[in-house]
């Protein structure tokens, strides 16, 4: 019976991939979990090198994909969920696709990105060997609830772990460091030490500004973005925990970024400080898996940005770079990053949707500091997506004098932008999640034709 259901779901998932029905991917997982609720636990128990779970608001996909890339380069067979399919049915689908017709799993290790809200259940089911906590920012309040709510759910999940589990935590996120103090298992910290990147003050859109131990407002020696930095509590004296994996000396260029991790110089096509965190977590993971330091670092520069996370297209001679921006922190860091590499003639397209997967509530665009970068984008900014009108209004209140080009239809606005492609510089696109899906579809069509 199991083999029959597996065969059906495998066929189904292959067909949907062949026919390019993206949403078909998670259906196979959905079906198998309906008939076999313990499918995930049983399948995963056969992985000889165990399973890694990666969660956090931003960076899950990049971290999971970069780690999978490196492990594959080291000749490990990796089972991993495709970007965005980070609920239980997405994990089940990934397992199905790596299974033979008799149910044998052709993989050595599991690397799964897991949705923040599903994390406690995923930990209970999967019993991972290593857990990575990247960060927690406000994101889709209508779906996830508040940051504090997630912190307390994660705390419960981490307190129930067996002590053999390794947990890799971003020490620069004070709420996550607090979780590290209350976790069972072996805790390791990663983080950044680079005083050059210090913001003068903690930005208004920061979330975890208070000490979770004593409720006092935290102080910062260095703040990189949001509430991420070298923090300390002036009252109860908690501080950023010591780092096992430390990045620094970060130099951002248009096409690549250089930085050090634990004295090893690293080069990558991913740019921006948030990718320093993602890649430092990846490095930490390779170390916890027992891989030599000198082996993983050189592989970083071969990793290609993935699915809208700094993914680059070349269309009619024009470079198009997509930077998924789905919450205030992501949007703000991406605006700041673009402001560093933006050149005259470059253009900026913002695309805001309010689908279920984006969050129906777009209030957060008022937590994005368009004001700070307006001069740079004034002549070239365009607004699109189902909430394009709200974006245009936000830009007006940020001080934009000129009315931007606005179209709710992303296809129409892209056509408009490509008319001038030859005469203009790069096009940077900042979309929310479902806007990314529709924009990629248009761009992939263009690339082929």
């Amino acid at each position: 019976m199991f083999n029959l259901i597996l065969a059906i779901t495998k066929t189904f998932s292959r067909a949907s991939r062949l026919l390019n029905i993206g949403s078909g991917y998670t259906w196979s997982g959905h079906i198998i979990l309906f008939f076999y609720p313990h499918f995930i636990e049983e399948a995963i128990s056969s992985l000889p090198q165990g399973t890694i779970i990666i969660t956090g608001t931003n960076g899950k996909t990049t971290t999971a994909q970069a780690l999978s890339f490196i492990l594959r380069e080291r000749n490990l067979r990796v089972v991993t969920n495709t970007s965005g399919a980070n609920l239980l049915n997405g994990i089940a689908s990934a397992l199905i696709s790596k299974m033979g017709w008799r149910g044998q799993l052709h993989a050595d290790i599991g690397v799964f990105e897991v949705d923040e809200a599903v994390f406690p259940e995923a930990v209970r089911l999967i019993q991972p060997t290593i857990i990575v906590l990247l960060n927690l920012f406000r994101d889709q309040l209508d779906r996830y609830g508040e940051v504090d709510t997630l912190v307390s759910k994660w705390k419960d999940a981490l307190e129930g772990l067996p002590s053999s589990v390794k947990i890799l935590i971003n020490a620069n996120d004070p709420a996550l460091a607090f979780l590290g103090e209350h976790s069972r298992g072996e805790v390791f910290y990663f983080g950044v030490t680079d005083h050059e990147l210090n913001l003068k003050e903690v930005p208004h859109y920061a979330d975890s500004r208070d000490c979770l131990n004593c409720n006092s407002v935290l102080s910062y020696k260095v703040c990189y973005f949001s509430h991420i930095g070298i923090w300390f509590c002036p009252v109860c004296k908690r501080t950023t925990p010591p780092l096992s994996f430390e990045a620094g000396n970060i130099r951002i260029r248009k096409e690549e970024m250089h930085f050090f991790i634990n004295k090893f110089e690293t080069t990558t096509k991913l740019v921006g400080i948030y990718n320093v965190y993602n890649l430092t977590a990846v490095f930490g993971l390779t170390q916890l898996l027992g891989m030599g330091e000198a082996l993983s670092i050189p592989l970083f520069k071969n990793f290609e940005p993935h699915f809208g996370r700094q993914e680059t297209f070349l269309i009619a001679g024009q470079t198009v770079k997509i930077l998924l921006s789905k919450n205030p922190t992501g949007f703000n860091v991406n605006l700041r990053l673009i402001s560093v590499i933006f050149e005259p003639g470059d253009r900026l397209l913002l695309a805001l949707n309010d689908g279920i997967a984006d969050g129906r509530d777009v209030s957060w665009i008022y937590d994005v500091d368009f004001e700070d970068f307006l001069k740079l984008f004034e002549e070239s900014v365009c607004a699109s997506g189902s909430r394009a009108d709200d974006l245009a209004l936000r830009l007006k209140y940020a001080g934009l004098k000129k009315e931007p080009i606005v179209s709710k239809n992303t296809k129409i606005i892209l056509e408009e932008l490509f008319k001038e492609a030859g005469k203009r510089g790069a096009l940077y696109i900042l979309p929310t999640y479902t806007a990314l899906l529709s924009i990629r579809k248009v761009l992939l069509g263009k690339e082929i034709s």
Partner: protein
Amino acid sequence: MKLKIAWLYPSLMGTYGDRGNIITLIKRCQWRNIQVEVREVNPGSPVDNLRSSDLIFMGGAQDRQQKIVADDILKNKGPIILELIEKGAVGLFVCASYQFLGHFYRAADGEEIPGLGLFDLHTVNPGLSVRRCIGNIVVELNIDGLPKLATNYQRLTTLVGFENHGGRTYLGEGVKPLGKVLRGFGNNGKDGTEGAIYKNAIGCYFHGPLLPRNPHLADLLISKALGVNPLDLIALPDDLEVKAHISALNNE
């Protein structure tokens, strides 16, 4: 002419774009050459600035922040807020702040947290098993003498926004609601009311940036705070505001 705005607990009570309201008030004053000053009021900060303000704004918050604020407001800022509103100052209190200005908030565990009692209302959180009120909301405003927008726009008599609250608010007898719910939940999802008005103070569940898409309400607050007739404010080119408002009226 100068508008003095007190922004209460900006970092604690500002979960999701609440600063959009302050940005809107500032811009709509500046576009009319009205001077404007925003004073951020935090726990422990002196109360002189608050005492001399014409307009008070307080946004929404998470539970933990709400507890930090509760302490400071009951002891220090609360009595001044009440005094100011009684004297005719303008107030906009959103979500958690709105609940806090009622008689009490009964939490999911049954604990009653006393409020300031500015509005004759109370709020009950029915517990986690009952769904939160989340979604787009549209109400028909219950306010006479709304400022006119420039003549080439359709007159706005609705308020559009987003709500996200667990607590259900019940108005006392004779309390004037802010409006009638056309879409969404409002105060409690049952009686069709949303928000409350007392003198020049408004409490409501329109969280985050309520004012950008509702420029008529922004102008009403500004004119009342300055003590001028709303009809005397210079009309502004509100194309984008009206477009976003109408877009929201049509958005399910």
